[in-house]
């Protein structure tokens, strides 16, 4: 983050904890702006002494901040605490496609999330 200092609790951008995300699609369905795109696939996990179980593996998680209106409904909706507000705010782009941030961008902002954020 650069430029003017803002409080750590600012609603600057949305960060994603990929390890907490279960690809449940709830955020994408609740989003009023349709700005969250999620792709995932199923994998069967085989563990000794346990029955095979199917898990969802995240392939793509993208938020189009050109559509986002910073309402925070996705963060409220997430049952697994995978989405957080991060204070970073300088995300201007020279073209609309530059406003789409993929999971690797969203993950990097996780380090800015203030501790103790619910």
């Amino acid at each position, binding site marked *: 983050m650069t430029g003017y200092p803002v409080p750590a609790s600012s609603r600057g951008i949305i960060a994603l904890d990929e390890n907490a995300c279960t*690809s*449940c699609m709830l955020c*994408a369905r609740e989003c009023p702006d*349709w700005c969250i795109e*999620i792709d995932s696939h199923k994998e069967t996990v085989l563990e000794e002494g346990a029955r095979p179980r199917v898990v969802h*593996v995240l392939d793509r998680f993208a938020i189009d901040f050109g559509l986002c209106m910073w309402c925070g409904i996705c963060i409220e909706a997430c049952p697994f605490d995978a989405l957080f507000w991060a204070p970073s705010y300088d995300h201007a782009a020279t073209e609309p496609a530059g406003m789409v941030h993929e999971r690797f961008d969203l993950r990097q902002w996780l380090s800015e999330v203030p501790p103790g954020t619910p």
Partner: protein
Amino acid sequence: MTWVADVTAARDAGAVFFDFLTAVDLEADGFEVVCRLWDPQARTEHLLRTRCTRTHARVPTLTGVFAGAAWHERAVADLFGIGFDGHDTVPLLLPASFEGHPLRKDFVLAAREARQWPGAKDPGESDADLAVPRRRRAKPLGTRDWSP
């Protein structure tokens, strides 16, 4: 004409600050026009409502009570297609060539019809899985159901 009389009475009783006027589309029950007034002395708010039908979407104007209601009524006329008796509502927000009233519930949002809803995918699915026909798929709110 109790709408104008009630707003006038509320203003004369101290609610002298006209905050806003807007409308709610109640679909089969017509439209509700809502007006919020503020009493700066008593620090109380007054929400006044009136109704009109869809077929005769007209209510009396409040511009005689609060001149500032003019812009709000012009916006409501644009966005809800409600007429105001006694007020020639010049379009405020929409271009003259615009057809329809975008805040009516039956107004079709073209962008929502043209684009694939990201929530249509189930957990464990990607875009390619949407090509597979399925009896039940999650549907977005606020869009028309095209199924027969």
